[in-house]
């Protein structure tokens, strides 16, 4: 990597002397510049650097120390998703404590975005569920007359799913393909189920809703210098031991192989020449200095909101609608996995809040001929009980104290309730709708003067049917388990899976990137992440993000040599 060396800095000054570019405090050159150090960017950075490509990996947010993050988590009075992480003004992200503080929700329904801008990205607080999409998930148009088909078949993706499972270290039950055919075994043995999962599986045996062990990127044996899971019960928002995969694994691999990591560097502009080649990236640092990156190939991997925002704010006379946007689809077709959350008290204590937070789920509901009428869904049995809907056992403790319980009575009541709480959550497939979209708000800017994202979002009747159906299934499940005090959160709860905003397809008129994730409009620009998903299935997106990123590594390297 040429890096911020004298050579490239001098090049910048020479160019500046000729009036071509402003003086920059920080300039570097690389063969491939990657924006975003989450799972997609980090994987590609590692794979390319290991094959001798000069890589610059640029991240808006700071590096994180796990012990500092843990300390912040312990000290936070509200221990939500973002509690452990720095909240830099220069690289803002949506905070649960201030939902409109950065992304501006235009409605009519809340999208509820959640992501981090730190080295390693949102994998710091991901759940580590590693489901593959189903073959029929990629063919919604052909099979059910809905939305669009993916431009890739399951068979084309399958080897890359295997590669992604090896990179992330997925633990899974050897006999379960969960409807997604496999050519090889999971790399790690399955995660042991909790007592709660085991009792629920017994209760649901013989019903259509038998849960299966969930494949997950959490170590069941020591793997890639990371330890075995020690049951900290805090996977979301932070794993204290690093037994849960996060993308710092591949950031470190990339750096060890020679990639240059620039953290605290917020890319705000993509430059393009008259031949539609991307010529550079400009970034700002918290000290308000400016930087400039020149590369042969550019990769944006800043997730489903920041990536389209960056493309759209880089509008110029040469690209008045933004970069990569001849289709007009950049930022559009935003999809989530809207959830139905239900919870209850089990008749017998099942002892939740111990071990990994999600261990089993119902996958049979992800497929079926009825998908033309209502969405595929996946039911997770939550081992962290009410942590998601109510913020954890602290809500129970507050309620019992509020009822006037004191002393030994209070202690007994806390034990009684928290040992019987159960959460059953269904994730539903949402169809793409071009009106659901991310746009930059040029009137409202962040601390560095960069337009903030605004979100237009509406849930349709198809989603409504799915949520209503899921609620009836939750009732059946609670009946079979034996519960009281059943509650359902009204309407949808955001899953914060950000998908679809720069969709993949063969036709440049109806998609933004091709199946290699190359922008139709720019031969040296690749866009990674769940923004490329034409549809979302009912599977957590990360494993598919990783598989597609690994698949794109070869075309990206070929583009360097072109």
């Amino acid at each position, binding site marked *: 990597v040429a890096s911020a060396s004298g050579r490239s800095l001098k090049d910048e000054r020479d160019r500046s002397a000729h009036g071509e570019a402003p003086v920059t405090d920080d300039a570097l050159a690389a063969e491939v510049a990657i924006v975003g150090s989450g799972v997609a960017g980090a994987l590609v950075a590692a794979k390319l650097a290991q094959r001798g490509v000069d890589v610059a990996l640029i991240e808006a947010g700071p590096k994180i120390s796990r012990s500092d993050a*843990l300390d912040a*988590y*312990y*000290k*936070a*009075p*509200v221990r939500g998703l973002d509690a452990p992480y720095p909240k830099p003004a220069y690289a803002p992200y949506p905070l649960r404590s201030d939902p409109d503080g950065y992304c501006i929700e235009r409605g009519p329904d809340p999208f509820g975005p959640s992501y981090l801008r730190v080295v390693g990205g949102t994998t710091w607080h991901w759940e580590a569920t590693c489901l593959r999409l189903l073959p029929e998930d990629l063919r919604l148009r052909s099979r059910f007359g809905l939305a669009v088909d993916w431009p890739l078949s399951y068979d084309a993706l399958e080897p890359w799913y295997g590669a992604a499972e090896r990179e992330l270290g997925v633990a899974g039950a050897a006999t379960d393909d969960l409807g997604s055919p496999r050519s090889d075994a999971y790399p790690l043995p399955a995660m*042991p*189920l*909790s*007592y709660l999962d*085991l009792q629920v599986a017994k209760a649901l045996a013989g019903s259509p809703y038998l849960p299966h062990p969930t494949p997950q990127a959490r170590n*069941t044996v020591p793997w890639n210098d990371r330890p*075995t*899971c*020690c*049951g*900290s*019960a*805090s996977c979301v928002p*932070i794993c*204290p*031991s690093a037994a849960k995969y996060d993308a710092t694994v591949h950031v470190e691999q990339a750096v060890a192989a020679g990639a240059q990591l620039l953290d605290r560097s917020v890319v705000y502009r993509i430059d393009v020449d008259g031949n539609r080649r991307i010529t550079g990236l400009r970034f700002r640092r918290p000290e308000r200095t400016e930087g400039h990156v020149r590369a042969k190939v550019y990769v944006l991997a800043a997730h489903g909101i920041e990536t389209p925002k960056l493309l759209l704010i880089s509008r110029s006379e040469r690209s008045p609608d933004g970069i990569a946007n001849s289709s007009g689809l950049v930022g559009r077709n935003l999809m989530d996995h809207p959830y139905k959350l239900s919870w209850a008290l089990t008749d017998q*204590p099942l*002892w939740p*809040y*111990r*071990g*990994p937070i999600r261990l089993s789920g119902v996958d049979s509901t992800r497929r079926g001929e009825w998908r033309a009428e209502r969405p595929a869904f996946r039911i997770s049995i939550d*081992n962290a009980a009410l942590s998601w809907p109510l913020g*954890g*056992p*602290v809500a129970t*403790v*507050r309620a019992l*104290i*509020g009822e006037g319980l*004191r*002393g*030994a*009575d*209070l*202690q007994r009541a*806390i*034990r009684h309730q*928290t*040992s019987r709480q159960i959460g059953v959550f269904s994730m539903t497939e949402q169809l793409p709708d071009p009106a659901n979209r991310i746009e930059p708000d040029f009137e409202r800017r962040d601390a560095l003067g960069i337009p903030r994202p605004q979100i237009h979002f509406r849930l349709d009747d198809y989603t409504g049917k799915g949520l209503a159906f899921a609620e009836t299934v939750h009732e059946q499940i609670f009946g079979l388990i034996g519960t009281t005090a059943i509650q359902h959160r009204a309407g949808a709860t955001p899953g914060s899976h950000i998908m679809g905003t720069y969709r993949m397809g063969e036709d440049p008129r109806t998609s933004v990137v091709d199946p290699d994730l190359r922008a139709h409009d720019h031969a040296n620009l690749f866009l990674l992440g769940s923004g490329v998903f034409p549809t979302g299935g009912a599977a957590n997106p990360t494993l598919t993000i990783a598989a597609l990123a690994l698949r794109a590594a070869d075309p990206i390297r070929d583009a360097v040599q072109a």
Partner: protein
Amino acid sequence: LGTGAWRGATAENSFDRFMDLSRQLTGQTMLDPIVGRLFYDALAQSEHAGALARLLAEGKVDDDQAGALEEQIVLQWFTGIYRSGAATRTATYEGALMWSAMAVPGPPGFCHGGLGFWSQPEG
């Protein structure tokens, strides 16, 4: 709790009485005085200050203000969290009484044992 002997209390034995009251309200005999000091000082500067002084001076007060104060004291000990002016602060994470009341091996965010201990019922 006694009453008469408390009259004319000094600041120091007010704190001792606060700890006595805390033990009574929580049902826990072992309470960390360093954590207790944080709670006590915060309450003494809060809207509960008057009720706190009366409760500690007289031992028992039956009114809504005293009830609200007692609820705050119990909440502080069980959650480890207290209000200090406009801020909400954590006095102790792992020392919050809710974790020992729950049937869990410890608060989330610490290693709790070998792989799969969660497959067995607790206790």
